[in-house]
């Protein structure tokens, strides 16, 4: 029989809160984590986009000065979320060789990279600090967590743009089912609210320019949506085999029943308008779960609030679920958090897990006039989930044509 995998710990630091609990409470309260950027570089470079979802609690306030100094902000967020998840799981005493990390980022240590380049140009090579390389490498966040919890069963980093951390969770399934390890910390982090990535995303017209109303800017499915809103932070989950969790008497949030990745090979940034790659990922995740599309009650959609992306995902959902789609309650939580890029799948997985565990579906804010081309049942205020066992999926798609989907179920012993 296939090894069952359960979620036993969660941790997050996001634009809504410095931990998973406060993030979830703010999400249910319909808050927005988006605000105007006050940094001097916004005016200095005359950035066309002047707002983002900044972490509610700066990681440097949580870590020691020495920890913060040696970590890029992306790794700082990762360490904060990873520690919370590990503590939430009870900081279990495990065999280090059977403990692994699957922790993603979309962009990596962009602050470190660009600061170091400024230093090189302005002050010469001698002033480029020796920690620069380990701080900028994309596996830095995974390595920071792995070092912290002494994970010796393999520390890996999925890099697939905005699908990265969902892919990391899917990869954890494979590792756990291999029998090589018992427990994994999985998730992802991003810290790219820096003038260069903002300029670059703005240049491709991917970002909302609703500068006068930042809290209303991330509005998935609304007719007036005009792009995504950058966010930053991290999400982490502790995943383990059911056998291992039961042996140590762990509290179980939900069961991770499937995870799959596919690729479009269609366009480097545009989603396949037919949604076939995204649909195949959903179908594969459900197949792993031994479930039918009709079993799904809730989708945490990728729904970034771009004009074309939201429709492409709807098309994919329609392909998979057909007429049953009208029975599925969809949440687009980026409306509150913004888009955490390589960290987004992890926090949305946490929202999906908590929705099942606490039996309440989180709201989508800023939906004023729903796009008639996307006739989904969108959850706009917290909606109770009835008793019983439920199946939910979380979708993530990324530049490069990456599609990643994870499926969670209410845990029933």
């Amino acid at each position: 029989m296939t090894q069952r995998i359960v979620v036993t710990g969660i941790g997050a630091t996001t634009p809504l809160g410095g931990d998973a609990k406060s993030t979830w409470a703010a999400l249910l309260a319909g808050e927005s984590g988006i605000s105007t950027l006050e940094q001097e570089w916004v005016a200095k470079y005359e950035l066309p986009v002047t707002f983002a979802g900044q972490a509610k609690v700066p990681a440097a306030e949580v870590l020691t000065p020495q920890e913060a100094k040696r970590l890029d902000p992306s790794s700082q967020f990762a360490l904060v979320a990873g520690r919370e998840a590990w503590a939430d799981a009870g900081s279990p005493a495990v065999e280090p060789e059977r403990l692994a990390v699957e922790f993603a980022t979309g962009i990596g240590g962009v602050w470190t990279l660009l600061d170091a380049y400024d230093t090189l140009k302005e002050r010469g090579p001698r002033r480029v600090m020796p920690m620069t390389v380990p701080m900028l490498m994309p596996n830095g966040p995974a390595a920071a967590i792995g070092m912290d919890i002494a994970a010796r069963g393999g520390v890996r980093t999925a890099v697939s743009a905005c699908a990265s951390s969902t892919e990391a969770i899917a990869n954890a399934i494979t590792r756990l089912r291999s029998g090589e390890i018992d427990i994994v910390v999985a998730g992802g982090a991003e810290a790219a609210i820096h003038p260069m990535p903002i300029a670059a995303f703005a240049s491709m017209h991917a970002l909302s320019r609703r500068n006068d109303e930042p809290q209303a800017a991330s509005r998935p499915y609304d007719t007036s949506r005009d792009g995504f809103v950058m966010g930053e932070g991290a999400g982490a989950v502790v995943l383990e085999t059911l056998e291992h969790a039961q042996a140590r008497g762990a509290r179980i949030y939900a069961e991770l029943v499937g995870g799959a990745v596919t690729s479009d090979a269609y366009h480097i940034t545009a989603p396949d308008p037919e949604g076939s790659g995204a649909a195949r990922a959903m179908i594969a995740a459900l197949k792993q779960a031994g479930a039918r599309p009709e079993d799904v009650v809730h989708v945490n959609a990728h729904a970034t609030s771009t004009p074309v992306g939201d429709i492409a995902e709807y098309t994919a959902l329609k392909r998979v679920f057909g007429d049953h789609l009208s029975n599925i309650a969809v949440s687009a939580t980026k409306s509150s958090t913004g888009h955490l890029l390589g960290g987004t799948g992890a926090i949305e997985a946490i929202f999906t897990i908590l929705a099942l565990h606490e039996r309440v579906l989180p709201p989508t804010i800023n939906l004023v006039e729903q796009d008639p081309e996307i006739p989904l049942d969108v959850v706009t205020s917290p909606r109770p989930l009835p008793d019983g066992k439920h199946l939910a999926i979380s979708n993530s798609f990324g530049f490069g044509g990456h599609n990643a989907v994870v499926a969670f179920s209410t845990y029933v012993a």
Partner: protein
Amino acid sequence: MALDQNEVLAGLAEIVNEETGIATEKVQLDKSFTDDLDIDSISMMTIVVNAEDKFGVKIPDEEVKNLITVGDAVNFIVNA
């Protein structure tokens, strides 16, 4: 004007503290950077570069390996 040994020690202790969190009073002349203070090579290079900035001296890379103790570094900077 030559730098004063005590001033250099105090300044170096601040740099070490900022990089590693080690209390400034533990940074004493007879302490070894690696054996006593547990400072790794990456931190050592950062400390060297910051010391160059702070004291306006040049510490060549080939010299760094000879700076075993805090006193070695202080003397090098004072005599530089």
